[in-house]
């Protein structure tokens, strides 16, 4: 026994037990000399006290078997063996003689031996009794405890009656019979047997069978002989307790255990599997909810599939877009698996060629059976589950289970894919947001505040990032350069070139403020250095604030609008887009324009996103509409004009999504 239990054992109880044992020894010795019935009564009472004490002492040990009847039975058997051995040993150590009806022990050494025997016997029996009670009460209500007390009382009462009234043989036997019936009555229902696993049922059969065997041995005079006589001399009550109460009780109870186990044996497997099914499906449910990694998920799933269907091996093939084929396998070598898959590939094709009612397929070959079920997610086959058995076939339960399982795997894999997808989407949209913010920073934060001119600007990309660009450079002499540019194409690639354009503009405009020089340098920098299919259209203007002069050059960009003296004009200044042709040709076609601006003169720059903005009828906004808006707003501030143009474009687009970047800059002369 372990330390913990030793601590729990009360020293007082142990001392009391030994004390009682010594008194009993003394009484039995006295009884040898003066065989008065009063000593028998005394020893019976004292022995009862001893037995109760011993039972109390072993309670902590018996506690272990509170919810464990199989282990309890095992320990009962373990303690029965020494009990039989003990009895057999003492049978030869104790000598008796018959004096008429009464059997007495011959010598004092016999009495001492008998005392030792009874004490050890009582100790072992109290353990058995305590464990037995735990088994008896396991999974049964209060009613069984009441029955138990009733039977115990019946037994004690019977003993007393027999002792006092000295009943006839017939009545005594009748009482015994009733006792046996009572034992059967209490032992009749043994609920815990049903829920035992197959293995535990086998154990229960084994333990109960041998327990019954040993108990019969203990009952038989052939084994116990003189030892039993010694017990009767020691305490007649103890003899009755063992031989007429506990041992018959145990025999009957174990007989019922044995019988009911045999009765429930065939259901054992089914019960076991139902439990396994339930717990497996629960686990899979959790698995589906938890596992983010398809591979990890399938590996676990394959193992469970193999277990619940009692297969020898199992594997799963999942075909998820982007993830390729995932083979998770269990209980099979890769080479064998591939060989088998090769063999069954026509079945796979058959599944893939049908559109609904997929079902499953079972194929027998050589010395085994293979089960194939497609994994179906959203009405499409996303893979296959394979189960393999050797020399056995699949029963209906296993097939149902495997099919449920295939569904679960399909759902799990699909979930996993969706999760991955949404993570990727989330990541991309965050990157785009970042790019958008970066690009926003490329555009000027504040517009230049000038004495003679008012400037307004607006730029709205169609996608997260765009290719439109506008910017200003303030020169040291107080003059100002302005650029509006549009990189061909859309999205990220255009945005990259736009960023490059900012660097080029900010550095070159300061060195080459005049349009011709500037554009030549820009084309030199860009032509042949960026992807051939990209080019940039732009308008560059250098504003001489002192002279109210503006130098403008256009490189392939939609022509700027000039409003002068109430007349509107598109300035189709010659110039080819930047990056299209080499400088030798480029400069040939480049003809900048010089303009003198007066009060209320206005210049409007814009990107082709304005002209090409389409409505539901695929009708472009066009130059005429732009012209009209500007004429309507020519008396207004540059801010108002920009806003009017934008509003008009939005109105034109109506419900249609903006497909191109939109940029508008208005420059108005105040003095």
């Amino acid at each position, binding site marked *: 026994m372990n330390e913990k239990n030793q601590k729990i054992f009360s020293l007082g109880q142990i001392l009391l037990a030994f004390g009682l044992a010594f008194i009993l020894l003394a009484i039995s010795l006295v009884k040898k000399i003066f065989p008065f019935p009063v000593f028998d009564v005394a020893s019976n009472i004292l022995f009862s006290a001893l037995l109760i004490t011993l039972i109390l002492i072993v309670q902590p040990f018996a506690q272990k078997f509170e919810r464990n009847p199989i282990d309890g039975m095992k320990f009962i058997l373990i303690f029965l063996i020494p009990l039989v051995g003990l009895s057999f040993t003492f049978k030869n150590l104790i000598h008796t003689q018959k004096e008429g009806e009464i059997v007495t022990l011959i010598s004092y050494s016999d009495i001492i031996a008998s005392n030792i025997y009874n004490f050890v016997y009582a100790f072992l029996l109290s353990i058995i009794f305590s464990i037995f009670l735990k088994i008896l009460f396991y999974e049964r209500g209060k009613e069984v405890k009441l029955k138990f007390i009733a039977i115990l009382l019946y037994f004690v009462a019977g003993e007393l009656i027999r002792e006092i009234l000295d009943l006839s043989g017939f009545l005594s036997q009748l009482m015994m019979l009733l006792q046996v019936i009572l034992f059967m009555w209490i032992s009749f229902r043994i609920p815990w047997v049903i829920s035992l696993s197959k293995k535990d049922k086998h154990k229960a059969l084994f333990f109960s069978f041998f327990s019954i065997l040993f108990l019969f041995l203990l009952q038989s005079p052939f084994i116990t002989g003189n030892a039993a006589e010694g017990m009767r001399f020691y305490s007649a009550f103890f003899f009755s307790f063992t031989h007429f109460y506990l041992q018959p009780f145990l025999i009957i109870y174990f007989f019922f255990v044995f019988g009911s186990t045999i009765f429930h044996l065939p259901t054992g497997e089914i019960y076991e599997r139902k439990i396994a099914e339930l717990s497996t499906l629960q686990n899979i449910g959790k698995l589906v909810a938890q596992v983010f990694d398809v591979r990890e998920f399938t590996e676990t799933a394959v193992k469970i599939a193999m277990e619940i269907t009692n297969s020898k091996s199992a594997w799963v093939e999942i075909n998820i877009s982007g993830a390729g084929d995932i083979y998770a396998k269990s209980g099979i070598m890769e080479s064998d698996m591939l060989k088998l898959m090769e063999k069954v590939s026509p079945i796979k094709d058959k599944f893939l060629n049908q559109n609904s009612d997929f079902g499953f397929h079972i194929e027998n070959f050589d010395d085994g059976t293979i089960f194939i079920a497609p994994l179906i997610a959203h009405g499409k086959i996303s893979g296959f589950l394979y189960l393999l058995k050797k020399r056995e076939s699949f029963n209906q339960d296993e097939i149902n289970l495997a099919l449920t399982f295939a569904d679960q795997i399909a759902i799990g894999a699909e979930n996993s894919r969706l999760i991955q997808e949404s993570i990727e989407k989330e990541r991309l949209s965050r990157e785009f947001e970042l790019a958008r913010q970066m690009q926003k920073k490329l555009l000027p934060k504040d517009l230049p505040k000038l004495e003679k001119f008012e400037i307004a600007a607006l730029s709205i990309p169609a996608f997260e990032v765009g290719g439109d660009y506008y910017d200003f450079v303030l020169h040291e002499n107080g003059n100002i350069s302005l650029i509006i540019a549009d990189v*061909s194409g859309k999205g990220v690639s255009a945005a990259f070139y736009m960023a490059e354009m900012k660097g080029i503009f900010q550095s070159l405009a300061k060195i080459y403020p005049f349009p011709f020089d500037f554009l030549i340098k820009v084309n030199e920098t860009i032509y042949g250095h960026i992807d051939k299919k990209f080019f940039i259209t732009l308008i560059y203007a250098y504003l001489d604030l002192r002279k109210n002069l503006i130098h403008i050059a256009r490189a392939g960009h939609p022509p700027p609008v000039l409003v002068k003296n109430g007349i509107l004009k598109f300035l189709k200044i010659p110039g080819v887009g930047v990056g*299209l042709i080499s400088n030798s040709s480029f400069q040939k076609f480049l003809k900048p324009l010089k303009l003198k601006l007066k009060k209320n003169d206005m210049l409007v720059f814009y990107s*082709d996103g304005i002209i*090409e903005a389409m409505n*539901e*009828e695929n009708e472009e906004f066009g130059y005429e509409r732009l012209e009209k808006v500007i004429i309507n707003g020519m008396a207004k501030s540059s801010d108002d004009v920009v806003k009017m143009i934008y509003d008009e474009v939005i109105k034109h687009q109506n419900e*249609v999504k903006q497909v191109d970047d939109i940029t508008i800059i208005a420059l108005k002369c105040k003095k």
Partner: protein
Amino acid sequence: MGKEMKEKNFDLKIEERGDVKILKMKGYLDAYTSLQFEEKMKELVESGNYKIVVNMKNLSYISSAGFGVFMAFVDEVRKNGGDIKFCCLPEKIDEIFELLGFKHIFEVLNDENKAIESFEKLGVKNAKKRKK
């Protein structure tokens, strides 16, 4: 953000006249459709077709990305003794060609046959050159 009411399709038919390929375009050559068009052009040029006439008669729209496709192949085509020529531009597209300066880069003709003939002349010229 709203929806697009009409599908903006792009359609390309390739006809052959001698060793000249005639690309008949229809619909909208925008940032998306130009990706398909680029694939077609790539196939064409890689399989040794360097004399290309692009007929834009039925083209409704061309974006800068569309122009980019021609820019991507023009150097290689010219290096191999061919060219890309345009014909039958609708007014609106002609205007864009003009503004962008594309007319300085590419030959633009009013008639498909003239465009094809100009290649034949080129062929004769080249043959003469070779004879010399």
